[in-house]
């Protein structure tokens, strides 16, 4: 009996422990919060979209209510002058002003009243559209806009030359590879990274290595890392950074090596980090795709 009881209590305890230890619940929890986050994101975008549609409908209703006079005005518009990017209310007013003589006093009054309403609607539309574009910009990114660890960057290469965030602003895209000397898969991709660096030079990019063993200017670790880099024929820049800096803290939080990330001209991290060596074809392809999109986005902004 006694043993049975003991066994039962132990079993219950174990099941309880297993449940907590499995981590399934918590991960599902994080997943859910992530999902709901993105969902709320889309919901708010959706609601602003419906609001936009409502406003456009209101304008169309105004045109329909005073169909005769508005059609008269639309008939006077020249398609070549159409400037959709400017203020729509101004555009309507300009056309009306130019043809003021063609309207009777009543017609003119209807037009100017309606235009006042339209001007207000247009202001709301402009506000909403700004909100959506801003949301669109932040949605796919990790909210790195404000707190990218590479905004204020400092480090030194293995020859002792200091570098700062201008390292990133010099190129459309910077590939930052985190590794450590004792990591076999990290060493295995060093030669590929060197090839990538040569390819990127022509495209306006650079590969930077950050070895977590060389933090805080550790001379011995830097020598060892330099020897490994040389043995693999890797010549791109490797940097020693301060472990207490933002970038150092970011690197210390990395759970799997090698990890490769992309940083744009402004020091923002772009896209998702790539875990595992780029000597794996899938990883290489996805990295190249991301590099291309960062370069495209950069040239579009110029």
């Amino acid at each position, binding site marked *: *009996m*006694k*043993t049975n009881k*003991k*066994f039962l209590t*132990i*079993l219950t*305890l*174990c099941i309880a*422990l*297993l449940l*907590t*230890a*499995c*981590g*399934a619940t*918590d*991960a*599902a*929890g*994080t997943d859910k919060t*992530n999902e709901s986050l993105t969902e709320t994101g889309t919901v708010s975008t959706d609601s602003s979209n419906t609001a936009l549609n409502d406003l456009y409908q209101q304008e169309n209703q105004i045109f329909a209510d005073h169909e005769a006079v508005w059609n008269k005005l639309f008939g006077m518009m020249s398609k070549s002058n159409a400037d959709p990017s400017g203020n729509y209310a101004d555009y309507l007013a300009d056309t009306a002003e130019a043809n003021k003589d063609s309207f009777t006093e009543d017609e003119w009054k209807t037009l100017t009243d309606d235009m006042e309403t339209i001007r207000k609607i247009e202001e709301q539309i402009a506000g909403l559209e700004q909100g959506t574009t801003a949301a669109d910009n932040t949605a796919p990114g990790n909210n790195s806009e404000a707190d990218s660890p590479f905004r204020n960057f400092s480090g030194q290469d293995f020859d002792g030359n200091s570098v700062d965030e201008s390292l990133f602003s010099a190129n459309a895209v910077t590939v930052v590879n985190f590794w450590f000397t*004792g990591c*076999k898969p990290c*060493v*295995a991709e060093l030669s590929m990274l060197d090839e990538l660096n040569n390819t990127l030079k022509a495209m306006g990019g650079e590969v930077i290595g950050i070895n977590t063993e060389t933090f805080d200017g550790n001379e011995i670790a830097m020598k060892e890392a330099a020897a*490994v880099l040389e*043995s*693999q024929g890797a010549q791109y820049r490797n940097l020693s950074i301060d472990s207490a800096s933002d970038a150092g803290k970011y690197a*210390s*939080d990395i*759970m*799997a090596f090698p*990890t490769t990330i992309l940083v744009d001209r402004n020091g923002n991290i772009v896209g*998702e*980090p790539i*875990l*595992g060596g780029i000597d794996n074809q899938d990883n290489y392809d996805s990295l190249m795709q991301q590099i291309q999109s960062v370069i495209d986005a950069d040239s579009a902004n110029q």
Partner: protein
Amino acid sequence: MDKRKKSLSGQTAGMRGWIQAAATLLTNIHIPNFFKGKIYQGNAKTVCVPGLNCYSCPAATGACPIGAFQAVIGSSRFKFSYYVTGFFILLGVTLGRFICGFLCPFGWFQDLLHKIPGKKFSTARLKPLRYLKYMILIVFVILLPLLVTNSIGMGDPFFCKYICPQGVLEGAIPLSLGNAAIRSALGKLFTWKCFILITVVVLSILFYRPFCKWICPLGAIYSLFNKVSLLNIKVEDSKCIGCGQCSRVCKMDVDVCRHPDHPECIRCGACIKACPKDAIHYRFMGK
């Protein structure tokens, strides 16, 4: 059940489940890390824990001795892991496979699985498989990491990478659940290791501790010290009536009366509890 006053050995054996639970908790003390999808990387990680417990478990307190041993052997800087070998000898000489029975989290995991009701099978006829763990120790833990290296002498931790089910259970699964980036990096190797884990789980329900008996290189190391370890089991010849109860209850297929210090004995104490004459007890340094 009985009114006999239990000996210290009997009490220890009776408390085994609790000791295992406590050891598992102490070996994995950083529970909140499960929710963060991160592993503890502080100074205690430079120390080995006695049992088989993955370094990459988010909650892990210290390093797995088998993992540490391979990491050092596989590193280009060192040829041999003196520190971890010393650790093996120290623990082997003091406790031996008592660690398997009382302190190892993966041993406890298999004990619990075996409590799931259902048909149980004896492993008495599968004794030759016991030698497999020594092969795994020599080939996957020592030789392959030492010999299969890249141009600058770095090897893979072959046992951790290709065999160890504890790594999937404690490392890969919780980490990938808590960390989206790691989840996206899972590949064929993860599938293979999950297959091994599921096999071990199913076998553990049907057999008692199949991993410890046949696979575990850490158990293989400790087993070598069972004959000389300070903690061992003594059968009092004067009390023994030769009823054979001890060997009948032994789930590790040990003939307790004849070989109380058999390499396979994990010191679980089932024989101590079963002996009608209290002739069997734990002994530390001859007492």
